[in-house]
Protein backbone atom coordinates (compact mmCIF):
# COMPACT_ATOMS: atom_id res chain seq x y z
CA UNK A 1 0.00 0.00 0.00
CA UNK A 2 1.29 3.41 -0.95
CA UNK A 3 0.83 6.01 1.77
CA UNK A 4 -1.54 5.85 4.72
CA UNK A 5 -4.95 4.24 4.25
CA UNK A 6 -6.94 7.24 5.61
CA UNK A 7 -10.60 6.80 4.66
CA UNK A 8 -10.11 3.07 4.29
CA UNK A 9 -9.76 2.76 8.07
CA UNK A 10 -13.44 3.57 8.58
CA UNK A 11 -14.36 1.26 5.72
CA UNK A 12 -12.33 -1.47 7.42
CA UNK A 13 -14.33 -1.04 10.64
CA UNK A 14 -17.56 -1.13 8.64
CA UNK A 15 -16.63 -4.25 6.69
CA UNK A 16 -16.79 -2.25 3.46
CA UNK A 17 -13.41 -3.19 1.96
CA UNK A 18 -12.78 -5.75 -0.75
CA UNK A 19 -10.57 -8.65 0.41
CA UNK A 20 -7.67 -7.16 -1.54
CA UNK A 21 -8.07 -3.74 0.06
CA UNK A 22 -8.45 -5.24 3.49
CA UNK A 23 -5.25 -7.23 3.12
CA UNK A 24 -3.38 -4.08 2.16
CA UNK A 25 -4.78 -2.05 5.04
CA UNK A 26 -4.04 -4.76 7.60
CA UNK A 27 -0.50 -5.14 6.34
CA UNK A 28 -0.01 -1.40 6.63
CA UNK A 29 -1.43 -1.37 10.16
CA UNK A 30 1.14 -3.92 11.28
CA UNK A 31 3.90 -1.50 10.41
CA UNK A 32 2.36 1.91 11.09
CA UNK A 33 1.64 2.83 14.70
CA UNK A 34 0.21 6.18 13.64
CA UNK A 35 -2.53 4.55 11.59
CA UNK A 36 -3.15 2.03 14.37
CA UNK A 37 -3.79 4.93 16.70
CA UNK A 38 -6.07 6.65 14.20
CA UNK A 39 -8.00 3.40 13.78
CA UNK A 40 -8.55 3.22 17.53
CA UNK A 41 -9.76 6.84 17.77
CA UNK A 42 -12.07 6.46 14.79
CA UNK A 43 -13.39 3.25 16.34
CA UNK A 44 -14.22 5.10 19.56
CA UNK A 45 -16.19 7.76 17.69
CA UNK A 46 -18.01 5.07 15.72
CA UNK A 47 -18.94 3.19 18.90
CA UNK A 48 -20.17 6.37 20.58
CA UNK A 49 -22.70 7.02 17.82
CA UNK A 50 -23.75 3.39 17.59
CA UNK A 51 -24.41 3.36 21.34
CA UNK A 52 -26.86 6.28 21.16
CA UNK A 53 -30.26 5.21 22.45
CA UNK A 54 -33.50 5.45 20.48
CA UNK A 55 -35.47 8.63 21.12
CA UNK A 56 -39.15 8.45 22.00
CA UNK A 57 -41.43 10.97 20.32
CA UNK A 58 -43.61 13.11 22.60
CA UNK A 59 -46.55 11.19 23.97
CA UNK A 60 -49.37 11.04 21.43
CA UNK A 61 -47.27 12.64 18.68
CA UNK A 62 -48.21 10.20 15.94
CA UNK A 63 -51.77 9.95 17.19
CA UNK A 64 -52.18 13.71 16.76
CA UNK A 65 -50.66 13.54 13.28
CA UNK A 66 -52.80 10.62 12.19
CA UNK A 67 -56.03 11.65 13.88
CA UNK A 68 -56.02 15.42 14.24
CA UNK A 69 -59.80 15.55 14.78
CA UNK A 70 -59.43 16.12 18.50
CA UNK A 71 -57.37 19.21 17.84
CA UNK A 72 -59.84 20.48 15.26
CA UNK A 73 -62.67 20.01 17.71
CA UNK A 74 -60.87 22.04 20.35
CA UNK A 75 -60.04 24.74 17.80
CA UNK A 76 -63.70 24.92 16.78
CA UNK A 77 -64.81 25.34 20.34
CA UNK A 78 -62.27 28.07 20.85
CA UNK A 79 -63.44 29.93 17.74
CA UNK A 80 -67.04 29.82 18.84
CA UNK A 81 -66.15 31.04 22.27
CA UNK A 82 -64.12 33.91 20.88
CA UNK A 83 -66.78 35.07 18.46
CA UNK A 84 -69.95 34.81 20.51
CA UNK A 85 -71.49 35.96 23.76
CA UNK A 86 -71.42 34.57 27.25
CA UNK A 87 -73.93 31.85 26.53
CA UNK A 88 -71.60 30.44 23.92
CA UNK A 89 -68.75 30.64 26.36
CA UNK A 90 -70.78 28.62 28.81
CA UNK A 91 -71.39 26.06 26.09
CA UNK A 92 -67.69 25.93 25.38
CA UNK A 93 -66.95 25.34 29.02
CA UNK A 94 -69.46 22.56 29.09
CA UNK A 95 -68.04 20.94 25.97
CA UNK A 96 -65.65 18.09 26.49
CA UNK A 97 -62.09 19.34 26.51
CA UNK A 98 -60.79 16.21 24.85
CA UNK A 99 -62.44 14.33 22.06
CA UNK A 100 -63.09 10.69 22.97
CA UNK A 101 -59.99 8.59 22.58
CA UNK A 102 -60.14 6.65 19.38
CA UNK A 103 -60.33 2.88 19.84
CA UNK A 104 -57.25 2.70 17.61
CA UNK A 105 -55.10 3.90 20.45
CA UNK A 106 -55.19 0.60 22.25
CA UNK A 107 -54.19 -1.13 19.04
CA UNK A 108 -51.31 1.25 18.61
CA UNK A 109 -50.12 0.58 22.11
CA UNK A 110 -50.28 -3.17 21.59
CA UNK A 111 -48.57 -2.97 18.24
CA UNK A 112 -45.90 -0.66 19.54
CA UNK A 113 -45.21 -2.79 22.57
CA UNK A 114 -45.05 -5.87 20.40
CA UNK A 115 -42.81 -4.30 17.79
CA UNK A 116 -40.56 -2.73 20.40
CA UNK A 117 -39.87 -6.09 21.93
CA UNK A 118 -39.49 -8.01 18.69
CA UNK A 119 -36.01 -9.17 17.94
CA UNK A 120 -34.57 -9.00 14.48
CA UNK A 121 -33.76 -5.40 13.84
CA UNK A 122 -31.28 -3.32 15.79
CA UNK A 123 -33.64 -0.54 16.76
CA UNK A 124 -36.37 -2.88 17.96
CA UNK A 125 -33.90 -4.79 20.08
CA UNK A 126 -33.31 -1.80 22.24
CA UNK A 127 -35.29 -1.26 25.37
CA UNK A 128 -39.03 -1.14 24.68
CA UNK A 129 -40.79 2.02 25.65
CA UNK A 130 -42.97 1.73 28.69
CA UNK A 131 -46.56 1.13 27.70
CA UNK A 132 -48.68 4.17 28.47
CA UNK A 133 -50.98 3.52 31.37
CA UNK A 134 -53.50 6.31 31.05
CA UNK A 135 -55.61 4.91 28.21
CA UNK A 136 -59.04 3.56 28.88
CA UNK A 137 -58.85 0.26 27.07
Amino acid at each position, binding site marked *: MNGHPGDLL*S*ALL*DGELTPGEEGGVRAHLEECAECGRELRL*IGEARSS*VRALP*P*VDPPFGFFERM*LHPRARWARAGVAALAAGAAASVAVMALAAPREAPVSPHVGQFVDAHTASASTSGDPISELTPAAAPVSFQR
Partner: protein
Amino acid sequence: MAGEGAPTWEELARSHGRFLYTVAYRLTGNREDAEDLVQEVLLRVRRGLETYQPGSMEGWLSRIATNAFLDDVRRRRRRPEDLLPEDPDWVLPPAMGADEALAAEVLSDDVQAALQRLPEDFRAAVVLCDVVGLPYQEISQTLGVPVGTVRSRIHRGRALLREALTRA
Protein backbone atom coordinates in the same frame (compact mmCIF):
# COMPACT_ATOMS: atom_id res chain seq x y z
CA MET B 1 -44.94 -6.04 6.85
CA ALA B 2 -42.34 -5.74 4.13
CA GLY B 3 -43.26 -7.69 1.08
CA GLU B 4 -46.69 -7.40 -0.42
CA GLY B 5 -47.62 -3.98 -1.66
CA ALA B 6 -47.20 -0.63 -0.05
CA PRO B 7 -47.85 -0.19 3.66
CA THR B 8 -50.56 2.15 4.82
CA TRP B 9 -49.79 5.45 6.41
CA GLU B 10 -50.97 4.19 9.77
CA GLU B 11 -48.90 1.02 9.58
CA LEU B 12 -45.83 3.15 9.03
CA ALA B 13 -46.38 5.31 12.07
CA ARG B 14 -47.32 2.33 14.21
CA SER B 15 -44.40 0.10 13.29
CA HIS B 16 -41.65 2.56 12.48
CA GLY B 17 -42.61 5.82 14.18
CA ARG B 18 -40.09 5.54 16.96
CA PHE B 19 -37.33 4.62 14.53
CA LEU B 20 -38.20 7.54 12.25
CA TYR B 21 -38.31 9.97 15.17
CA THR B 22 -34.91 8.74 16.37
CA VAL B 23 -33.34 9.30 12.95
CA ALA B 24 -34.94 12.74 12.71
CA TYR B 25 -33.66 13.67 16.16
CA ARG B 26 -30.13 12.50 15.41
CA LEU B 27 -30.11 14.52 12.18
CA THR B 28 -31.62 17.73 13.53
CA GLY B 29 -30.45 17.62 17.15
CA ASN B 30 -33.60 19.00 18.77
CA ARG B 31 -37.18 17.93 19.30
CA GLU B 32 -38.89 20.80 17.54
CA ASP B 33 -36.98 20.31 14.29
CA ALA B 34 -37.27 16.54 14.64
CA GLU B 35 -41.06 16.82 14.81
CA ASP B 36 -41.13 19.08 11.77
CA LEU B 37 -38.91 16.65 9.89
CA VAL B 38 -41.06 13.65 10.79
CA GLN B 39 -44.15 15.51 9.59
CA GLU B 40 -42.42 16.35 6.32
CA VAL B 41 -41.37 12.72 5.88
CA LEU B 42 -44.90 11.46 6.43
CA LEU B 43 -46.23 14.00 3.94
CA ARG B 44 -43.71 12.80 1.37
CA VAL B 45 -44.57 9.21 2.20
CA ARG B 46 -48.24 9.95 1.71
CA ARG B 47 -47.56 11.45 -1.69
CA GLY B 48 -45.07 8.78 -2.70
CA LEU B 49 -46.34 5.50 -1.33
CA GLU B 50 -47.03 4.27 -4.81
CA THR B 51 -43.32 4.42 -5.56
CA TYR B 52 -42.50 2.21 -2.60
CA GLN B 53 -40.42 -0.82 -3.51
CA PRO B 54 -40.84 -3.75 -1.13
CA GLY B 55 -37.66 -4.04 0.88
CA SER B 56 -36.24 -2.44 3.97
CA MET B 57 -38.92 -0.08 5.22
CA GLU B 58 -36.53 1.58 7.62
CA GLY B 59 -33.97 2.09 4.89
CA TRP B 60 -36.65 3.68 2.72
CA LEU B 61 -37.84 5.97 5.52
CA SER B 62 -34.26 6.92 6.35
CA ARG B 63 -33.63 7.92 2.76
CA ILE B 64 -36.71 10.12 2.69
CA ALA B 65 -35.81 11.66 6.05
CA THR B 66 -32.24 12.39 5.02
CA ASN B 67 -33.28 13.96 1.75
CA ALA B 68 -35.91 16.09 3.47
CA PHE B 69 -33.33 17.16 6.05
CA LEU B 70 -30.72 18.10 3.45
CA ASP B 71 -33.36 19.90 1.34
CA ASP B 72 -34.15 22.03 4.36
CA VAL B 73 -30.45 22.70 5.00
CA ARG B 74 -30.02 23.86 1.40
CA ARG B 75 -33.07 26.10 1.66
CA ARG B 76 -31.66 27.72 4.77
CA ARG B 77 -28.28 28.17 3.13
CA ARG B 78 -29.85 30.30 0.43
CA ARG B 79 -30.66 32.81 3.14
CA PRO B 80 -27.45 34.70 3.87
CA GLU B 81 -28.15 35.10 7.58
CA ASP B 82 -28.16 31.33 7.93
CA LEU B 83 -25.09 30.74 5.82
CA LEU B 84 -23.18 27.72 6.98
CA PRO B 85 -19.57 26.93 6.20
CA GLU B 86 -19.32 24.88 3.02
CA ASP B 87 -15.94 23.40 3.73
CA PRO B 88 -14.80 24.01 7.28
CA ASP B 89 -11.07 23.70 7.75
CA TRP B 90 -11.38 21.78 11.00
CA VAL B 91 -11.10 18.49 9.16
CA LEU B 92 -8.97 15.70 10.60
CA PRO B 93 -6.93 18.09 12.73
CA PRO B 94 -3.26 17.32 13.27
CA ALA B 95 -3.93 17.82 16.99
CA MET B 96 -5.61 14.44 16.81
CA GLY B 97 -2.23 12.99 17.62
CA ALA B 98 -2.46 14.30 21.18
CA ASP B 99 -2.76 11.69 23.87
CA GLU B 100 -6.06 12.63 25.44
CA ALA B 101 -8.05 9.56 26.33
CA LEU B 102 -11.73 9.61 25.65
CA ALA B 103 -13.70 9.27 28.85
CA ALA B 104 -14.82 5.71 29.30
CA GLU B 105 -18.42 6.74 29.11
CA VAL B 106 -19.43 9.64 26.95
CA LEU B 107 -22.88 10.90 27.71
CA SER B 108 -25.22 10.62 24.79
CA ASP B 109 -25.91 14.35 25.09
CA ASP B 110 -22.25 15.00 24.41
CA VAL B 111 -22.33 12.69 21.40
CA GLN B 112 -25.46 14.40 20.09
CA ALA B 113 -23.83 17.81 20.60
CA ALA B 114 -20.76 16.61 18.72
CA LEU B 115 -22.98 15.36 15.89
CA GLN B 116 -24.53 18.82 15.71
CA ARG B 117 -21.13 20.34 15.10
CA LEU B 118 -20.54 18.23 12.00
CA PRO B 119 -21.22 19.76 8.60
CA GLU B 120 -24.63 18.43 7.58
CA ASP B 121 -23.31 16.34 4.70
CA PHE B 122 -20.96 14.53 7.04
CA ARG B 123 -23.64 14.21 9.71
CA ALA B 124 -26.06 12.64 7.24
CA ALA B 125 -23.45 10.07 6.18
CA VAL B 126 -22.56 9.21 9.79
CA VAL B 127 -26.21 8.92 10.86
CA LEU B 128 -27.08 6.70 7.91
CA CYS B 129 -24.09 4.48 8.67
CA ASP B 130 -24.02 4.37 12.46
CA VAL B 131 -27.61 5.08 13.52
CA VAL B 132 -29.54 3.50 10.65
CA GLY B 133 -26.92 0.91 9.72
CA LEU B 134 -27.12 1.26 5.94
CA PRO B 135 -24.30 -0.17 3.80
CA TYR B 136 -22.14 2.32 1.92
CA GLN B 137 -23.77 1.48 -1.40
CA GLU B 138 -27.20 2.50 -0.10
CA ILE B 139 -25.81 5.63 1.52
CA SER B 140 -24.26 6.48 -1.83
CA GLN B 141 -27.64 6.15 -3.55
CA THR B 142 -29.39 8.12 -0.83
CA LEU B 143 -26.99 11.03 -0.94
CA GLY B 144 -26.41 10.88 -4.68
CA VAL B 145 -22.63 10.76 -4.34
CA PRO B 146 -20.04 8.09 -5.22
CA VAL B 147 -19.14 5.41 -2.66
CA GLY B 148 -15.67 6.96 -2.37
CA THR B 149 -17.27 10.20 -1.20
CA VAL B 150 -19.36 8.26 1.32
CA ARG B 151 -16.19 6.66 2.69
CA SER B 152 -14.53 10.02 2.98
CA ARG B 153 -17.49 11.72 4.68
CA ILE B 154 -17.92 8.93 7.19
CA HIS B 155 -14.24 8.86 8.04
CA ARG B 156 -13.84 12.61 8.30
CA GLY B 157 -17.10 12.86 10.22
CA ARG B 158 -15.84 10.34 12.77
CA ALA B 159 -12.51 12.12 13.06
CA LEU B 160 -14.33 15.39 13.78
CA LEU B 161 -16.62 13.67 16.26
CA ARG B 162 -13.68 12.19 18.10
CA GLU B 163 -12.04 15.58 18.26
CA ALA B 164 -15.22 17.25 19.55
CA LEU B 165 -15.74 14.55 22.18
CA THR B 166 -12.20 14.94 23.41
CA ARG B 167 -12.89 18.62 24.04
CA ALA B 168 -16.32 17.99 25.58
